[in-house]
């Protein structure tokens, strides 16, 4: 290839060379040369025209989380770029591999407050793994390659490439003979043997050991290794919000989710355990509660690919820096088989005496629709039919989904965890639906989050996507905030009462199927109808409005200190 190409064509060519099959974006002034060139590449990769750049960013995240590959989103300079900030921050917090490409004003006017100029590299510096402002066409091949490499290796994350319009328009013969020069970037993959032996020694001597599995297990593709390790050692397994699916919940060694809305027996087990091995989790405060009181009796082993996570929130006795898969393989090699102990029985007893899934699903004998009815029916259906991904948004519905669906496969549960981005689910489902055209992509979201990004329904229709089914758990409130106001602020419902349109009719207006369910009896038929409809479906489940998520650790409290169920009537109310 010795012909001259424009910078924009080189950008397209670079995407092809990285094996990109789909990108999500919106054109605009400063990125127009790229879109001009993309027209010639429409057979090489697909472009999904979103309705808002935030949607494009979350769609790229959804694609990435469903596949493990790098998601790509594109926007123009200024407002286009700033609209990507939320998904970039989301990808940063959840270690999602993302490359965001933005157009920038011409290098001749950069720094002069030109039309639609924003310092997007400055803005995204604290929320990207790395970012670039490219002003010279000659830098494009190298930067694109490095961006994809950084986004996808080590601890994955978002990388932003901001390219000036004149660099896109210039012409040159590209040099693809690229050798990455990253002397300061060498992720450690193989765990240190000495530390692995130290971990094995701790685990071997433990009476009450626990495994905590996080997102790292899923990203490293280490679910098989985790299973082997757990079965060989008989150690009970906890899965964090992002670890859901890393270990099947119907496995006899699975005990469930920890943290703010985790199960009582799981948090109690953490508080009692004598050795805790965290594999690929970052001890988020939603997991630890008050960190100084977390796992007070435990000697902690922390496996993470990012050294900076180790010792950041929780004191750690054995640090293992490495890739979860390779570390688990080494642990399996070194660790002698071990019999399951009375410890597991003890945890099961705790489980039996505290609220757990089944008790939680017991319902009052009325026909009033409870949120849990939807989850019970969905859980049954998902088990029967298989072949699904569930994308959740942020709030009460998200915690209920994490609690009440029996997660069994990696990447089947996709949510916004660290950043807690309302509005994530619908566009992320768009990305997941493109990644997995043969699967049913269920969205579970609240009426609040749905109203933040539902414009992407138009994108879904325009792109002919038919495998998305959206369940809105509609309680007419910003429910999680309302719950906190109820429990901790004396029912001062300050600005949490939320109206909305008739979602079924809104869906019809977008050209997708809309349904409304207001009774228990209506749930299963609606889900059945959703499967039978060859196209995207929105089901508005109008649920009992003031239902709370329990159990719950109040913020700043120890995880041993849970509110297990609805407190009896507040005397001051």
């Amino acid at each position: 290839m010795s012909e001259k190409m424009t910078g924009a064509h080189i950008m397209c060519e670079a995407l092809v060379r990285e094996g990109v099959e789909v990108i999500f974006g919106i054109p605009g002034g400063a990125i127009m040369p790229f879109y001009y060139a993309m027209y010639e590449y429409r057979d090489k990769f697909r472009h999904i025209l979103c309705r808002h750049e935030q949607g494009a960013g979350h769609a790229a995240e959804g694609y990435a989380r469903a596949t493990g590959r790098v998601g790509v989103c594109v926007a123009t300079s200024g407002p286009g770029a700033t609209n990507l900030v939320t998904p970039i921050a989301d990808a940063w917090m959840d270690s999602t591999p993302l490359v965001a490409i933005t157009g920038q004003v011409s290098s001749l006017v950069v720094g002069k407050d030109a039309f639609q100029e924003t310092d997007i590299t400055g803005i995204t510096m604290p929320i990207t793994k790395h970012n670039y402002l490219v002003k010279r066409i000659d830098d494009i091949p190298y930067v694109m390659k490095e961006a994809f490499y950084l986004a996808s290796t080590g601890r994955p994350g978002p990388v932003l490439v901001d390219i000036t319009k004149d660099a896109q328009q210039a012409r040159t013969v590209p040099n693809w003979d690229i050798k990455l020069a990253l002397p300061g970037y060498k992720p450690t993959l193989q765990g240190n043997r000495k530390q692995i032996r130290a971990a094995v020694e701790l685990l071997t001597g433990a009476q009450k050991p626990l495994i905590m599995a996080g997102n790292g297990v899923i990203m490293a593709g280490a679910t098989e290794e985790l299973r082997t390790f757990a079965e060989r050692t008989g150690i009970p397994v906890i899965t964090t919000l992002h670890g859901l699916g890393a270990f099947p919940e119907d496995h006899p060694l699975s005990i469930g989710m920890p943290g703010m809305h985790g199960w009582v027996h799981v948090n109690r087990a953490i508080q009692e355990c004598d050795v805790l091995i965290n594999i690929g989790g970052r001890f988020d405060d939603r997991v630890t509660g008050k960190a100084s009181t977390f796992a007070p009796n435990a000697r902690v082993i922390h496996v993470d690919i990012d050294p900076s996570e180790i010792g950041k929130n929780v004191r750690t006795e054995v640090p293992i820096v490495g890739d979860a898969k390779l570390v688990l393989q080494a642990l399996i090699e070194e660790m002698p088989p071990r019999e399951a102990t009375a410890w597991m029985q003890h945890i099961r007893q705790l489980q039996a005496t505290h609220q757990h899934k089944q008790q939680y699903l017991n319902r009052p004998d009325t026909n009033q629709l409870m949120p849990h009815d939807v989850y019970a029916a969905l859980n049954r259906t998902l088990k029967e039919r298989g072949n699904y991904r569930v994308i959740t948004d942020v709030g009460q519905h998200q915690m209920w989904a994490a609690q009440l669906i029996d997660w069994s496969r990696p990447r089947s549960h996709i949510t916004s965890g660290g950043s807690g981005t309302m509005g994530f689910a619908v566009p992320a489902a768009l990305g997941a639906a493109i990644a997995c055209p043969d699967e049913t992509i269920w969205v579970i979201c609240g009426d609040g989050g749905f109203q933040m990004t539902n414009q992407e329904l138009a994108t879904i229709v325009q792109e002919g996507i038919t495998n998305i089914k959206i369940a809105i758990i509609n309680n007419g409130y910003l429910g999680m905030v309302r719950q906190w106001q109820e429990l901790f602020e004396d029912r001062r419902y300050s600005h949490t009462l939320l109206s909305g349109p008739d979602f079924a009719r809104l869906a019809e207006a977008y050209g997708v199927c809309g349904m409304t369910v207001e009774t228990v009896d209506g749930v299963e038929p609606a889900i059945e109808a959703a499967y039978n409809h060859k196209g995207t479906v929105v089901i508005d489940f109008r649920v009992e409005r003031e239902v709370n998520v329990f159990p719950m650790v109040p913020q700043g409290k120890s995880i041993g200190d849970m509110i297990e169920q609805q407190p009896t009537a507040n005397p001051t109310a």
Partner: protein
Amino acid sequence: MKKHTLVALMQDRPGVLTRAVSLFRRRGFNIESLTVGHSETPGISRMTLVVESEAVEQVVKQLYRLIEVLKVSDVTDDPAVEREMALVKVHCTNTNRSEIVTLTQLFDAKIVDVANTSIIVEMTGSPNKVQNFVDVIRPFGIKEMMRTGRVAMVRGARTHQGSDYVGAEENGHVAASTWN
């Protein structure tokens, strides 16, 4: 809180200083001084920073997350030469000028500018010595002062060379953990 002196080597790429400084701000690290300049290796900058922190290990690890950072060393407890320079414009009169000159000589400082009512003194030395000098000269009236912040170098044969880290891709991890 203990003060730590860190020496960091980093690739001289656009924005690297901003990245480091932005990192300190958002992680809430309290930086007492930060000095950056060229190292002996072309393309590699060297930074000396003094940080007041219980969690200096987090500072080091967060620095390593920057793609450009090659090596960070805590030299606080190492035998090291630590120096700082100050330019001090001191108010003077015909009657006290010689007193200032004497003090300057006692501190091995240099007078680099003399005018009717002021003298500029260039004081280089260990941070303690510079501080002592400033304290002693202050009663005369300091009109202006610029201190550079600390630079540090470990004594003896041990080095922190940029060339140890560039072009050495095969040598396994460079900027990874302090554990392994």
